[in-house]
């Protein structure tokens, strides 16, 4: 199929999947907390309601960065579905994250400001692990192309399982789940308010929601790459990882930002580095 159509279909379908995943998230979380929970399609109701509200902003630049966040997240997704370079995908994801943080910085609001500062700390925590993941994939495949992953018969998980574990830690940070819901949280916390998202409302907030849906699917897609042949196993693994995150979210308490950086560097980085070192040495031996 023409890559253009693949990309277009992905851009249309993915937010629907992402919205449903967000609905499942709310439902399971509610059940874990002994509540009934909203219907699974509730995120879509919220989304359209937010879209219909009038435009209000606290800064002229803020909404520009939100568009940047959305567009670059979509670009990442296109890179994934067209099976392009995974290293460039990670860099693009970095731009999306920076855009979001800059949106937080662009108004003189204490809540969004500390949220933005913490968002940068989150990036400091997860960016090296994502880059090392790309490097690990290169060590296995001799290429950064995602298409090469699909050409292998052996799943990446077999040799890259330490990196996979590190990636699960990163997934918690990226999905803003406890113990890493540092810059903003999906649950009500008076000390955070809504962190970096405090100053967004109406359609702009809807855009953030939409971006988050893209992001969920993108991240789960990257996880699915670890078992790309057959892909349905990878998708099941990704869904299992998602459910696992929900449990962790509900049993963990939020930790401090400094702890997050130390934890992800100590656990995530060490796992990645050992993994790559092992692969490199094995290659040298053979």
């Amino acid at each position, binding site marked *: 199929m023409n890559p253009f159509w693949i990309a277009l279909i992905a851009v249309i379908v993915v937010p629907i999947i992402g919205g449903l995943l967000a609905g499942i998230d709310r439902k399971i979380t509610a059940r874990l907390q002994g509540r009934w929970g909203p219907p699974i399609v509730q995120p879509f109701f919220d989304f359209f309601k937010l879209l219909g509200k009038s435009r209000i902003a606290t*800064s002229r630049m803020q909404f*520009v960065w939100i*568009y940047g966040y959305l567009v670059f997240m979509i*670009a990442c997704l296109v890179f994934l579905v067209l099976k392009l370079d995974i*290293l460039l995908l990670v860099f693009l994801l970095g731009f999306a994250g920076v855009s979001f943080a800059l949106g937080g910085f662009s*108004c*003189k*609001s204490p809540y969004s400001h500390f949220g933005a500062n913490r968002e940068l700390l989150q990036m400091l925590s997860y*960016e090296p692990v994502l880059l090392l993941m790309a490097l690990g994939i290169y060590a296995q495949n001799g290429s950064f192309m995602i298409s090469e992953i699909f050409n292998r018969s052996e799943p990446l998980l077999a040799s890259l399982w330490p990196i996979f574990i590190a990636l699960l830690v990163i997934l918690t940070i990226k999905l803003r789940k406890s113990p890493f819901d540092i810059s903003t949280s999906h649950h009500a916390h008076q000390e955070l308010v809504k962190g970096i998202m405090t100053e967004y409302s109406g359609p702009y907030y809807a855009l953030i929601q939409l971006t988050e849906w893209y992001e969920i699917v993108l991240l789960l897609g990257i996880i699915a790459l670890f078992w790309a042949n057959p892909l349905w196993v990878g998708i099941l693994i990704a869904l299992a990882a998602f459910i696992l995150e929900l449990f962790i979210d509900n049993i963990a308490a939020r930790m401090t930002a400094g702890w997050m950086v130390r934890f992800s560097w100590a656990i995530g*980085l060490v796992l990645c580095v050992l993994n790559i070192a092992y692969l490199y040495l094995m290659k040298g031996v053979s």
Partner: protein
Amino acid sequence: MDLNWMMAVAILLPLVAGILIFIFRHYQIRGLIVVITALALIINSIYFLKLGPVEYTPEGSNWGLAITVLDYLILLFYIYAGLSLRNWLVLIFALTQIVPLAYWEFGMGAHVELEPAFVVDHLAIVMTLVISIIGSLICIYAIRYMHDHEHHLHLEKSRQSRFLFWLVMFLGAMNGLVFANNLYWLYFFWEVTTLCCFQLIAHDLTKEAINNAARALWMNSLGGTAFILAMIYLYVNHGGADALSMQNIISGGLGQAAALLPVALLCFTGFTKAAQLPFQGWLLGAMVAPTPVSALLHSSTMVKAGVYLVVRLAPAFAGSYLGVMVALVGAFTFLGASGLAISQTTGKRVLAYSTIANLGLIIACAGINTPLAIAASILLIIFHAISKGLMFLCAGTIEHIIWSREIEDMEGLAEKAPVTTFITAIGILSMFLPPFGMLLAKWMALEAAYAVPLAAILFVLASAATIVFWAKWLGRLLQVLPRLGRKFESLSLSYSVPLWVLVIGIFVVGIGVAPVYEKFVHFAVNNVIAAEQVFAEGWNVLVPGVSAVTPLPAPAVGAYPVWPLFVVFGVALLLPFLFLALKPQELRPVYMCGEQVGDTDTDEWVTAADQKAKVQLGGYYFQNVLGEAALNPWVNTVAIALLLILFGVVLGVVLQ
């Protein structure tokens, strides 16, 4: 054009122009001379591009004598400087240069005449384009900047002529440096750049300026000493003057193992000039100088001489452990300097650390030494020169708007000076985000780095740190109180022309990276390393013909579909920025838990005991973890250890 004239314009014209500037002490005439010189240099460098590789030896036998005499004059001046400043380090390292040099020339009777004296190959052409174009723009910027600078300082006697003399002459010395094939002549130009640097840093004549200039002098003299030792070693062990031809060394004419020690010494010289850890001190100290100096030192001259020398020497250590060690020294500098940059509160110091970090990356690429890595290093030299030149000019412009260099003072600059902020934002984004050239080169570096995995891991950590300090700074600039009303500031032509030319340069070179690569970088890579396979190995990372936005017709191998990313960039940021302006009534005050004073637009809130206070926000700097006091001992220890290992490895090979 005649080659004699082209060489004269490239190397001697800046000197002549400098002398003229020194004589005619009138603002307009001086400015005119600088602008004409700048244009001549730019056109001349383009002629070099059209001419292609060429060898040149000046006619007449007196050039060698003149260079020898000037060499001793410069070194005697260093001794004088050491004595008059009572700076013993300056004195010691001046003596360690002049004594061996004198012994070598008069004791051993060395006489170095080589044909060709200059070899202008593609790498040199890339360098001369960078030096002539970006350096000239900075000189133009300096005309007005120094005027404002002295106005602000209320000087009685203008010293602008003296300043511009050294600034313009710098470009000539750099051109000579990148063309020189004769190591003895290369050494002479090397010393001229050190001298210019010393004079420019000391320009303001404050105590701090003089101290920092002295530090730059002794650190670079240490490098100069290593240079002299390398020359003497080559002369003694490899049969006289012929061994001092750069082309001979890098083509392996001396045998790799035998030449490894002098090559390591020359790399060390490059490290000192490129301010690699632990020699970062002089470049940070150089920040006291007026901003055009910083812009020039950081973008197109001085530090680029250091990385140029290492990239130039890359074939001489290909495949050896020296290459691995060079890669590690560079990669460690990349990480160390990026980490230190997070804790810096001054804009120019952030820029300085970022420069050191990127130079480390370039040197690491030279050390990795695959075709892809060399291509990355040359692209980094180009992109870094443009972006960093722009960033420093922005920093200078901001300084002349708010008269401060502190990042925290730049809060809300987007309202006070929207044009400058816009340009600065482009500059910052171009340093670390896709689709701009710096990131693409970094991405190539990372793809190449797998050859030295330890370096790759250092790269990864460093590039995460890079994101933090740039985004933090950009966040400060953009943070505004809405509805204050904004006025577009007017910048003088001498400011705005270089700024906008560099902004356009960033986009042109970034979008046109494929032609830029094919037109000159590819050949330059070939100069360094036989690189037929660069495209096949490295450029297939984006599938040819498939791009993120539009399917392209399948191009020839080697086309680099990076422009779709620029389309994404435009759609994401520029379009909303330009066309989706909010109406004033759509802007609201921020949320402050109901503690805001009144409901109008204000940044005051009700604090304890019903006192009113201004909201004060700031970035995170982590002084106690990443500050210089906390990190420097560790970083410097590791860096010194790496240098010792480097020489240990080389001596191990040589003594075998």
